Each structure stands twice: as structure tokens, then as C-alpha cells.
């Protein structure tokens, strides 16, 4: 087609006109006013509900055994966000990723819609009446049969008591409380030495922590309270404890350690004896394959006067012995009562059954001694090794009932599925710590699906069969029973509901002693020639598999490897070189019981004779987000047990060979090295005292004695050279004044009339202001000394800001008109993930794999630069600087040129490639009812739009609106952003840096403060505080 300017041809203008008309016609058909929609009022106005304003309900998280307090934000009857309850003694307002992702369990699109019964070999929907009648009939038949078994999840509080009471009425044995995530060996040792299953660990009272495989920052025990304590301890900077990690694999906790001793699997007991007892150091060092001097130095240090805390959480056949050695050391050194607090136990870990109990159950099932098997909240068909044959044994049980909400591996084998309410829909009482009751209440106006609380089901069966019905005569349902259990009765409960916690105790279940005698695995897995050790560990995000059906947790990069939507085999680079393996090459790991194949991840943090595989993936059921993603290493474990606790041994030996094929690692990481960019900075304790607090200097910048020494390019920061009039030399802006760190002279100019400091609300830059800076400057500090890299902030951001997950198999791109790239995580391989905040993890040193290395975590989000490189390149002004200091992205202006992303030095802008938020697209990220979780205060972005961190502008506006209506100014620390709210190590602080009443104003001028890429003159609003490294006493100071 030719574009002719003459009158006879087609004019460009005419062409556009016709196109426009065609478009208008399409628009008229597609979005006429008929589509404006309906306004549906309430039938009756509910009390205490204002449309468009959130209500908050305090309840209890049941995602793990700990029982943290959560506050559910509820908008128009639907829970949309979970945050920690600040009043709760365990988590004090913080919440981990797993806890936050409970919402995606509640709204999981693959939940059972209602009761199911097996007919003709398939589970088909049935009615509650029929299902309850069947259950009643079967239970009547099994009455008094000691073989009938009920497996319940591990939880504290009233339900276990209720359950045992109900079981005993039917003459059935007490239930098995089985949680595959429970570190059973440590629990056993704690019981023997401290007398409780899980004491509170207080790291603030010690100066040296030695962890032998105890991943207290991952999910070893009550991770949120442990992280809180660890964060507080490390914030003591020079007086903080040093962490030494001993183990074959550096977990997240291991990466947070100041020193790593890469002991071979199986050598931990010798090492523990050498360190904590009278064992021979040389022998231990030889068995562990580590330097004897290093071990000797640590042993000497431990025997000295330093207040020390020893933790052990290994998973081999001698795990309890190792844990006992550590616990006895603490006892002998007087750490009990200061660093270890048995008087404040976490009660959720009491009464758990061990793997040996499940193994014994399987033996009974195979022998035909189990007439009825009931399972609630556990998935033993997936979380036990395939070699145990749990699934096969279920075939020998005549009647199996599942109370699972999800179509997991176990419930799919059952004859009857009676889906339980989600924990967020249920009444309950938890007892997280002695003397404090944590309440559980429904957060939803009505349940999402046709489910029923298991308590109600059991009570109904009891009443229908008249077995033990007398105990429930006074109660209409389980909720009524709960109200009666509460000390003080229903009225006291009503009074306690607003905070969700109350003083007092409820009767605890008397935990039956573990019945099954453990069968010990071979004492130390002997490694044959050509074999490597295989370490299997629970994923910090997915646990042993329960997190797999939540897309947030699948999408969230593993804190250690930065891999998502994929299983991987961790192998040391030197070993990989020997096998001629590079990142992503398939490795086959073969044991006596089977083999699995997964891509290799070359990891410096693993001992060279060892490979490691994470648990949690490889589901064969459990819904669309879990099924078929990755592999399950339990398929190749032989099922050995710890000889004292009966815990499953997760350590074995395996033959590792290179397999055909290669898979791109689904990683969100660009490089594991900083390449001299000084993104994540650290300071040695010894250098801490030399740091000067930042202060306004005539030079116009925070006096940063440390800034120049860290700045690359010869330490010259443009605009700070002496002799330039002592200020920023900004071309074209002769009037620019010397301005301190957060203030950008260029942005001040770009503000135009908005910079008018005499305006009412306007004017970021106020010459009269004490800071010389602003009336309001939203800013953030991230304390890298506190940050552990756990990534809870990332999940919080996904939840708050409607961020789509992009890695599910159906979300890939079209490879032809009829085919799609259905590799899980294909979008992430292409760099299309949408993590507005991401956790970067950098390794320092140890490049050749021979030496120890340091790890630095740094949350990276939009830096809200005062002088933002993204802003001037936008051709449509879709990104600009707001007068209160936000770098704003206006979605409706954005045309998707991606120039901004190209120009962003921090790579924090994310492009919406496929319309992940549009329901009619294949890549839609929120299939019904996952979309119920969407935050109505935040736009769900469409295709072709650039998006990024907004500093939770919706929260800023909400707080401003609230203050305005109450006729007052915003108060210091009145609100915070989602990532800061969730952070379990309290590393993130948000606020107004121009107002001294906000904590962030003080933290931003801390002596450790720095800006990432300060030399680019971006004047970022995110201020990082340097990590503090604790060198070993005799070692030469590093960093």
C-alpha cells in the first residue's frame, strides 16, 4: 500500500479515520453502557460493615503447628489480606510467607466443592446427608475396634481434645497427631533435656550461636518468633551474636551465618561431641572433612567464657543424639533460662507423632487390622517415602475418610471426602504458649464452598448414631462447644475476640506416648565408591509439600537458590565439573530404592561430597498449581529412622550421574555476584566504630566518610568533588541548592508549580523545613543487619498489590498458533516475573569453591528516586514524581514502550506481558475464586502496562483520608507498608523522612546508611543500612 499525499490516493489521515470508525464501532458493540453493570445492595444491612471500608478480624494461623496470631482484613465479607497480630506473644505482628499464603488455600480453585463419595472407583459429589449417614454406619461397625485410626494435623488447643473425646466415645484409640514438617528429633531432645517440646530461643542474650543443621530461620520449629528474636539480636550490631553453621548444606540459616563449617553428613555427632563434650577434635575434623584448626578454634571459643547457644537440627539416624549433645551443652553452660526458655514453650509442638508411628500404622494397615482410617489436615501418602507404601496400604483399609479441603494424594485414595472448612472459616481455640489463648474465628461472612467444619461433622455423627451424644447434648454445633470451653464462657469469649487473644488456658490433650519403637537406619550411611551423600530437606516455603498448591509460594523464589516452579539438585561446582555438568543439566540421583532426575543447581554452599534436594514438590495430585511440578525426593528414600525419636532419616547415599537433557533454571536471579557494584554493602564489626553518623554538611550531602570508600569508580561521586562550590553541579540548573541525600535538585525543578512550598498540600521541597528537604518525603530504610532473606516481604507485596503469578504451566507464551510453551516457569525463564519487591542474594568470596563465603541479602524494590532515570524517558508521562516523593506509575497513561524499564538501574519495573489480570485470557492469574482475594484498593493491571512498587500508595491514601476525616495531621508511624508490616526480622521501616516523628527519619541518617548506586545521583528514597559481619575472633577481619 502506498501512502500518497495527492488527492486521488489514500491519505494517511483518511486511513486513520476509517480505522478509528471501525474501532469506535467495535467499542460500541463491546463496551456499551449495558456493560456498566449492576449495583447490588444488601438485602439487609449487616452490622458494623461499611461498604468500601475494611473490617479486621483477629484469628489464628493454622498453616503450621506454631499457631501465630493473624489479623484478617475483610472487605465486604471476604478476607483479602492476612497480617500478623501485634498483640500476639509468638509473632508480634510479623507473619511468614506460608502464613500469608493461607488465603490462597482458602480461595484455592481446586478445593473440594462439597462432600465426595467413591462410586464405581471414582470420587463423585454427594450430599452431606448421604455422606454423614455413610460415615455413621461405618463408624458404628468399627465401634470399639482398636485398629481404627484418626490422623490429625499437629495443632494446639481444643480440637485435639475434642477429637480424642469423640474417638473414645466410639471406643477408638486416641488420634495420631502427625506433621511431617515437625523436627521430631529436636523435639525428642528438647523433651529429654528441657522438659518441653519446643522452648523459646532468645538470641539476644548470647554472643555465639552454633547451629548444627538447625535451620531456625527456615522452618525448624517456630520460625517467626525465632526470626524476630534473631533480628533483634543482630540489631545489637557490635554486641550481636556470631553465628556458626555446621552442616553439609548451607540453608537459609546457613547463609545467614558468619562462618560455615561444611561437615559431611553423618559426621555431625562426632563434631558435636568434639565441640560440646570431650570428643576428639582431630577425629571429628577428619570425619567431617573440615579443618581441624577451625574446629579446634571453635571448640576453644565455646569452652571460653563467651555466652554461647548450641542448636542442633540434623536429620540423620543419629539426629536425636546430636540434638541431645547441643541441649546438654546449653544446660551445662547455663544457657537454659537465658537463651533457651523452657518456661515459655511453644505448645503447638507437643504431642506430635513420629514417622515411626506412621510406619507402624502402615504395618497394621497391611495386616488388615485397620477397618477405618480417617485423615484430617495431613497428607501421609505424599509426605512419607514411597518405599513405605502408604498409598498401597490404604488399599487394604476397607473404609477411608478424608477431611481434607484439597484433592491431595491421600484424599484421592479415600472412599469418603468430607471437606473441612478452611481455618479462616472456623471457630477454634489455640494455645500457642502457656497462659495465652489464641482465638480462631470465621473471617468470611459465609464459607467459600459447601464445606463443613470437622467438629460439626463429628458432632453430627455422634448425635445421629447416639454414640457419645450425651457429651454434645448442650451444644448445637462445634462453635457452641468452643464457646463453652473458653474460660469464662461465651461472654468472656466475646470480650476477647477483638484482640484475638486472652489470658488463660484450656485443657490440653494428654499426649499418648509414642507407641512404635523406631527402626534405626544404618548408623552412618556408608558411602560406597563413586557415591555421594544425599541430603533431603524441607523447603523453607513449601515445607514437605503442603504449600505446593499456593501459587504465591510456588512463584516465590527459594531464598537460597532463587529457583521457583521447579525442583533442582544442589551440587558443588567442583563435583559438577567432575561430572561435566553445568547449571540446568539433568542429573539422575539413584539410590537403592529408586531414582529421580532434576536439573542441577551449582551451589557453593554444599559440601563437595554431597547433593541436596528440597522436599515440597513432585505432587501427583493437590490441584493445578502443584500437580506435575518438580519431583519428590521421598520417592528415593529408604525410610530409615532416627533411633531415639523415630523421625524419618533424610540422609542417605546416592549415585549421581549426568542424564540426558537440560532445563533452563527457573530463576529470578541475574547474577549471584555483585561484580563490584556494591549493591549489598557490609561492614565488619571492627570497622563499625569508625563509621560516622550522617549529617548535613556544607558539601550538600550526608557526610559519608563511608560513602566514598565504598563507591566504585575511584570513590568519586559526581557532584561531590571539592572545589565545585560545595554543591551539586547540575547542568542547566544554576540555582540548585546543596541538598542532602534524599533530596534531588533535579526533581525539585521537574516539579514545576507543584514544588511551590507555599501550597497547601504541595511542595516536596521546603527551604524553611528543618531538613531543608520536604514537607513530606515517603521513604524506607532496610536494615541489612536484620534481614535474613526469608522473603515474607515478597509474599506480602503479592497479597497487597494484586501481583499476578506468572509461572503456572498454562501461562506460557504461544509458540505457534496452536501450541503453547507449557513448561512451568517458562515466563520466569524469560524474565517476566512480576515481583515488585524481590530478595536479591549475593555471594562474596569463595569463588573457587575452596573457601568459606559470605552471603548478603538485600530486598530490592522501586527506589522511588528523587531523580529517577525512568521518568524523563517516558514518552507519555506515565511515570512522574509526586510531590510527596513517590515515583508514580500511571497505568492508564502507560502505552508499554518499556523505555522506563530499560533506563532503570535497579531493574525494578515489571511489564505485564500477557494480561495476567484479565479473566478472559489464558494466562489469567486469578482463576475463580482466587480473585476473591484481590485488594479492591489496587488496580488489577492489564496487558501491556508497566508496573512496579508504589510504596503502597493505597495505604498512604487510606491513612491520609482517615486523618483528614478526623481533622488531624498524620502521626508518626501511624501506618506502614505491606512488606514492612510482614517482615519477621523487622528489617524494613517505612515512613515520612521529612517528619522527625517517624522512625524512618532517624534511621535514614544512621551511620550505616547508604543508597544503592549512589554514584548515579538517583537520590533514592530507599535507604539501606549496611550488614554487619562478625569475624571469628582469631581470623583476620574481612569485609
Amino acid at each position: 500500500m502506498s501512502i500518497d499525499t495527492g488527492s486521488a490516493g489514500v491519505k494517511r489521515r483518511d486511513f486513520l479515520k476509517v480505522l478509528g470508525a471501525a474501532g469506535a464501532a467495535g467499542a460500541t458493540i463491546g463496551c456499551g453502557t449495558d456493560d456498566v453493570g449492576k449495583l447490588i445492595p444488601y438485602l439487609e444491612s449487616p452490622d458494623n460493615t461499611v461498604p468500601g471500608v475494611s473490617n479486621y478480624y483477629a484469628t489464628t494461623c493454622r498453616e503450621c503447628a506454631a499457631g501465630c496470631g493473624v489479623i484478617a482484613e475483610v472487605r465486604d465479607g471476604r478476607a483479602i489480606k492476612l497480617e500478623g497480630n501485634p498483640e500476639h506473644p509468638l509473632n508480634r505482628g510479623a507473619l511468614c510467607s506460608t502464613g500469608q499464603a493461607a488465603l490462597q488455600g482458602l480461595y484455592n480453585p481446586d478445593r473440594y466443592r462439597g462432600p465426595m463419595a467413591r462410586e464405581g472407583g471414582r470420587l463423585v459429589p454427594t450430599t452431606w446427608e448421604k455422606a454423614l449417614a455413610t460415615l455413621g454406619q461405618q463408624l458404628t461397625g468399627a465401634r470399639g475396634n482398636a485398629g481404627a485410626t484418626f490422623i490429625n494435623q499437629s495443632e494446639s488447643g481444643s480440637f485435639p481434645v475434642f477429637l480424642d473425646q469423640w474417638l473414645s466415645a466410639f471406643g477408638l484409640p486416641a488420634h495420631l497427631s502427625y506433621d511431617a514438617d515437625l523436627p521430631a528429633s529436636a523435639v525428642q531432645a528438647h523433651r529429654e533435656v528441657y522438659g518441653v517440646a519446643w522452648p523459646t530461643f532468645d538470641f539476644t542474650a548470647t554472643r555465639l550461636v552454633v547451629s548444627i543443621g538447625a535451620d531456625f530461620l527456615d522452618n525448624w520449629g517456630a520460625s517467626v518468633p525465632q526470626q524476630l528474636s534473631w533480628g533483634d539480636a543482630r540489631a545489637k550490631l557490635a554486641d550481636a551474636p556470631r553465628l556458626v553453621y555446621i552442616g553439609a548444606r548451607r540453608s537459609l540459616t546457613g547463609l545467614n551465618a558468619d562462618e560455615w563449617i561444611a561437615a559431611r553428613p553423618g559426621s555431625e555427632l562426632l563434631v558435636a561431641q568434639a565441640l560440646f563434650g570431650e570428643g576428639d577434635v582431630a577425629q571429628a575434623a577428619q570425619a567431617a572433612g573440615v579443618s581441624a584448626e577451625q574446629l579446634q578454634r571453635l571448640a576453644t571459643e565455646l569452652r571460653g567464657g563467651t555466652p554461647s547457644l548450641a542448636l542442633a537440627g540434623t536429620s540423620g539416624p543419629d539426629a536425636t543424639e546430636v540434638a541431645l549433645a547441643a541441649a546438654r551443652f546449653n544446660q551445662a553452660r547455663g544457657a537454659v533460662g537465658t537463651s533457651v526458655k523452657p518456661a515459655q514453650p511453644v505448645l503447638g509442638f507437643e504431642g506430635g507423632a513420629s514417622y515411626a508411628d506412621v510406619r507402624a500404622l502402615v504395618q497394621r494397615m497391611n495386616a488388615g487390622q485397620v477397618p477405618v482410617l480417617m485423615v484430617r489436615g495431613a497428607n501421609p501418602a505424599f509426605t512419607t517415602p514411597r518405599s513405605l507404601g502408604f498409598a498401597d496400604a490404604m488399599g487394604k483399609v476397607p473404609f477411608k475418610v478424608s477431611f481434607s479441603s484439597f484433592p491431595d494424594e491421600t484424599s484421592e485414595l479415600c472412599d469418603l471426602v468430607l471437606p473441612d472448612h478452611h481455618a479462616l472459616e472456623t471457630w477454634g481455640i489455640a494455645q500457642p504458649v502457656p497462659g495465652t489463648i489464641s482465638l480462631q474465628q470465621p473471617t468470611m461472612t459465609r464459607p467459600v464452598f459447601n464445606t463443613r467444619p470437622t467438629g460439626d461433622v463429628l458432632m453430627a455423627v455422634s448425635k445421629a448414631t447416639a454414640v457419645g451424644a450425651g457429651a454434645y447434648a448442650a451444644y448445637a454445633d462445634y462453635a457452641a462447644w468452643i464457646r463453652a470451653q473458653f474460660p469464662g464462657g461465651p461472654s468472656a469469649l466475646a470480650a476477647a475476640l477483638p484482640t484475638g487473644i486472652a489470658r488463660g488456658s484450656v485443657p490440653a490433650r494428654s499426649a499418648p506416648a509414642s507407641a512404635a519403637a523406631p527402626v534405626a537406619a544404618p548408623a552412618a550411611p556408608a558411602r560406597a565408591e563413586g557415591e555421594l551423600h544425599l541430603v533431603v530437606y524441607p523447603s523453607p516455603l513449601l515445607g514437605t509439600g503442603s504449600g505446593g498448591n499456593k501459587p504465591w509460594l510456588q512463584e516465590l523464589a527459594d531464598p537460597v537458590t532463587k529457583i521457583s516452579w521447579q525442583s533442582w539438585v544442589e551440587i558443588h561446582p567442583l563435583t559438577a565439573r567432575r561430572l561435566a555438568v553445568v547449571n540446568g543439566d539433568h542429573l539422575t540421583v539413584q539410590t537403592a530404592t529408586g531414582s529421580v532426575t532434576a536439573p542441577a543447581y551449582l551451589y557453593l554452599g554444599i559440601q563437595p561430597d554431597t547433593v541436596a534436594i528440597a522436599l515440597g514438590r513432585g505432587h501427583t495430585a493437590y490441584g493445578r498449581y502443584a500437580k506435575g511440578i518438580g519431583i519428590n525426593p521421598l520417592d528415593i528414600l529408604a525410610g530409615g529412622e532416627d533411633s531415639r525419636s523415630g523421625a524419618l532419616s533424610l540422609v542417605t547415599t546416592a549415585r549421581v550421574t549426568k542424564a540426558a537433557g537440560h532445563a533452563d533454571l527457573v530463576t529470578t536471579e541475574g547474577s549471584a555476584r555483585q561484580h563490584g557494584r556494591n549493591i549489598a554493602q557490609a561492614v565488619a564489626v571492627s570497622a563499625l566504630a569508625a563509621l560516622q553518623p550522617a549529617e548535613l554538611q556544607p558539601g550538600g550531602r550526608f557526610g559519608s566518610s563511608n560513602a566514598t570508600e565504598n563507591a566504585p569508580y575511584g570513590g568519586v561521586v559526581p557532584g561531590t568533588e571539592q572545589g565545585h562550590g560545595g554543591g551539586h553541579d547540575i547542568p542547566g540548573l544554576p540555582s540548585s541548592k546543596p541538598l542532602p541525600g534524599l533530596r534531588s535538585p533535579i526533581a525539585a525543578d521537574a516539579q514545576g508549580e507543584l514544588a511551590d512550598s507555599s501550597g497547601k498540600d504541595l511542595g516536596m521541597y521546603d527551604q524553611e523545613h528543618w531538613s531543608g528537604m520536604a514537607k513530606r518525603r515517603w521513604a524506607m530504610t532496610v536494615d541489612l543487619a536484620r534481614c535474613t532473606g526469608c522473603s515474607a516481604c515478597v509474599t506480602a507485596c503479592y497479597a497487597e498489590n494484586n501481583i499476578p503469578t506468572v509461572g503456572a504451566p498454562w501461562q506460557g507464551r504461544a509458540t505457534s498458533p496452536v501450541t503453547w510453551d507449557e513448561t512451568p516457569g517458562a515466563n520466569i525463564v524469560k524474565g517476566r516475573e512480576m515481583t515488585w519487591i524481590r530478595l536479591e542474594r549475593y555471594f562474596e568470596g569463595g569463588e573457587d569453591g575452596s573457601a568459606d563465603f559470605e552471603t548478603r541479602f538485600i530486598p530490592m524494590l522501586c527506589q522511588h528516586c528523587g531523580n529517577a532515570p525512568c521518568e524523563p524517558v517516558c514518552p507519555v508521562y506515565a511515570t512522574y514524581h509526586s510531590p510527596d516523593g513517590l515515583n508514580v506509575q500511571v497505568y492508564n497513561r502507560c502505552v508499554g514502550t518499556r523505555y522506563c524499564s530499560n533506563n532503570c538501574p535497579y531493574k525494578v519495573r515489571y511489564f505485564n506481558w500477557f494480561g495476567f489480570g484479565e479473566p478472559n485470557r489464558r494466562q489469567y492469574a486469578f482463576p475463580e475464586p482466587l480473585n476473591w482475594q484481590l485488594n479492591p484498593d489496587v488496580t488489577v493491571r492489564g496487558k501491556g502496562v508497566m508496573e512496579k512498587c508504589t510504596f503502597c500508595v493505597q495505604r498512604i491514601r487510606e491513612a491520609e483520608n482517615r486523618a483528614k476525616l478526623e481533622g488531624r495531621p498524620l502521626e508518626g508511624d501511624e501506618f506502614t507498608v505491606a512488606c514492612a508490616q510482614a517482615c519477621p526480622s523487622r528489617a524494613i521501616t517505612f515512613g515520612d523522612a521529612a517528619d522527625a516523628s517517624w522512625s524512618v527519619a532517624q534511621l535514614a541518617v544512621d551511620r550505616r546508611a547508604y543508597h544503592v548506586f549512589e554514584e548515579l545521583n538517583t537520590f533514592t528514597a530507599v535507604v539501606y543500612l549496611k550488614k554487619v559481619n562478625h569475624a571469628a575472633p582469631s581470623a583476620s577481619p574481612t569485609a
Partner: protein
Amino acid sequence: MTRGRKWAAIPGLALIAAVATVLSAYSGAQAGAPAQAATAAQPPVATPTDTAVLRQQRDTLAEPGPWAYSAASSDQGYAPEQPVNFPHPVHVQSLQMNCVYCHFAADKSPDPGMPAVGTCMGCHTVVAAGKPEIQKLAKYYNEKKPVPWVRIHKVPDYVHFPHMRHVDAGVTCQSCHGQVQNMPRVYQYSSLNMGWCVSCHVERKARYDCATCHY
């Protein structure tokens, strides 16, 4: 289906281009007169009082004009039939009811609130219970169905309009919604276009940088 649509787009665009070529060649042959004449049409007034006139103007105009900041690209004047013919004049003028009696959240929430059906029935169980419109209402209530009011005022999803801030600042309901108390059937009084929003924000010295409303 999405896939089909996506790949159909290329031949579709080619088709449109072909049609455009033919049409333009045709109009070019007509001595080139109409294009200038069409753009000379008067743009509509920005603050209409008679929606029927406005609609007529909009429908009869031959070509898009410089309307970006005026009414015609919006649904201004939209006056759909409602499931129950609710007469605002009777309630507001005759009965002297305050707007926030029914729209109870307008001063405390971004969402003004629609009265629950139960609120209507609070009076109408007795008052005017025999009238046909009230019987329609009662039918909904007795069947426990909410009245599916047709939504008239709607800003796009990427715009946040907090009602309470405007009420708090003394902006009357009528400023945006028109003299609803005189409307036998409610219609969209204002354009709700961004230019319309911004002109008021400028006039009243309210913030008007993008992130005030867009986030």
C-alpha cells in the same frame, strides 16, 4: 478462544486496511469536500442541562470532534430504566429525606453505599404498599433477592474516587450527580471525564497530580 482471536487479528487488520483503501479512494473521488465540513460541527456544551438534547447532538454528529475533555466520549446523559422506578423527587423533596439517609457511607467511605432492600422495606411494608412499583420491590424482598439496580455512575477501575473526602471538603452531591432531587429517572449528569475532575481540583486547589486518584 483467545488464541483464535489473537491469530485472527492479523487478517482482520489486513481486511480493515483494504476496506479503508477502497473507501478513501471512493471519498477522494468525491472532490474531497466533506472532510472539512464535518470537522466544522460545533462541539457539545460541557455542562448540559437537558440530556436529551445532548444525546441527540452526540448521535447526530458526523465525526469525532475535540471532545477529549468534554462530555461526548463519556456516558453523560445515560438514563437507563431501573428494575424499580425509584422516584428521588418524592423522597428528597416531598419527604425531605437526606441523601446520606440511604447512601449511608458517602461521608465515611470511598463507596457511598446503596441502601439495603431492608431499609426500603422499613417504610414500605406499610407506606404505599399497594402501589405497583412497591409491589415489585416487595417481591424482591420476599424472594430474598437484592434489587439489581443498573449502575449509572462509574469511573474506570484505575480511578479511585473517595466519596468521603469530597463530602468532607464540602462538595455537594449535586456538584457531580446533578439535581437528583428533581430527576424522575436518574441520569448521568456529569461527564466523569478526567478533564472534568481536574478542572474542579484546580479550581478548588486540591491536589491533582496523577497519583491522587490513579494507583
